[in-house]
């Protein structure tokens, strides 16, 4: 039953993506992106990842708010001639389709949907599930992984967020440029 629901939501995301590509009004494209993101978080919930569902919804709200802040009052209505693609879309469509057809036969070698690959080896996932609670004492295995077993990843990830915020603020320096005369 879950597979059908996931398939349906995935089709909704693809249709939504087509909608985003073809629509003229910027604001509705941004809102459509939000809808696709929320569809994705429902898929995460169905696939047994509640942690991810919460983070995905929250991140989607923030990026929606930031993007709406960027598009509001600014040439909402895309002029008709502007929506033509900058380069003729046909060759790109053909080679992407070719790429998809080449990849398709390889899909059969992926693990069957529903029997993940960590079962055929004595993989670290089984180790985490069995001994994770004893070693770290955290019932939520996923936060045990991201903060204790692979805490070094999360340090890197926290720094990624810090650099992107620092970078965004250093680009948006219009405000203190007025005070002291900045670069020549």
């Amino acid at each position, binding site marked *: 039953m879950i*597979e059908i629901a*996931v*398939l349906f939501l*995935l089709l909704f995301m*693809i249709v939504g*993506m*087509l909608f*985003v*590509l073809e629509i003229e009004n*910027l604001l509705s494209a941004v809102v459509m*992106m939000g809808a*696709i*993101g929320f569809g*994705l978080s429902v*898929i995460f919930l169905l696939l*047994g*990842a509640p942690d*991810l569902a919460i*983070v*995905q919804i929250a*991140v989607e709200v923030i*990026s929606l708010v*930031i993007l709406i*802040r*960027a*598009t509001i009052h600014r040439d909402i209505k895309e002029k008709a001639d502007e929506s*033509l693609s*900058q*380069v003729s879309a046909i060759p*790109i469509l053909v080679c*992407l389709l070719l790429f*998809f057809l080449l*990849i398709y036969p390889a*899909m059969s070698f*992926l*693990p069957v*949907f*529903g*029997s*993940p690959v*960590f079962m055929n080896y004595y993989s670290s*996932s*089984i180790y985490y*599930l069995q001994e*994770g*609670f004893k070693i770290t004492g955290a*019932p939520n*295995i*996923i936060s045990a*992984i*991201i903060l204790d077993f692979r805490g070094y990843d999360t340090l890197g990830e926290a720094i*990624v*967020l810090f*650099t*992107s*915020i620092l*970078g*965004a603020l250093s*680009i948006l320096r*219009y405000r203190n440029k007025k005070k002291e005369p900045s670069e020549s």
Partner: protein
Amino acid sequence: MIYALCILLFLLGLYGVMVKRNLIKIIISLAMMTNAVNLFFVLLAYRKNGQVPIITNFNTASTVADLAVDPIPQALVLTSVVIGLGTTALMVALAIRLYHSYGTFDITKIRKLKG
């Protein structure tokens, strides 16, 4: 079959990045590509009617290990979702500054660079 749809979403995002002229459309397509790769990761981790990998008072560690979904991809996707947010924030900041210096979101009109 589901993997193919997920890769189709990834290629649609790539198409949007390559073809579209509007900066905001490019930002949205790139966010969609990040979503597609994250979805592919979690699709790999799904187990037929698998449980959430969280141990509660009712189930002991051993029963969870036999029924739970794969936890590692979920931990990795948690990180790459937030990386996607960082990249989107940087891109929106650039798009706003570009809008104020060029007056338009259209990438073909932003052509001050030579070559």
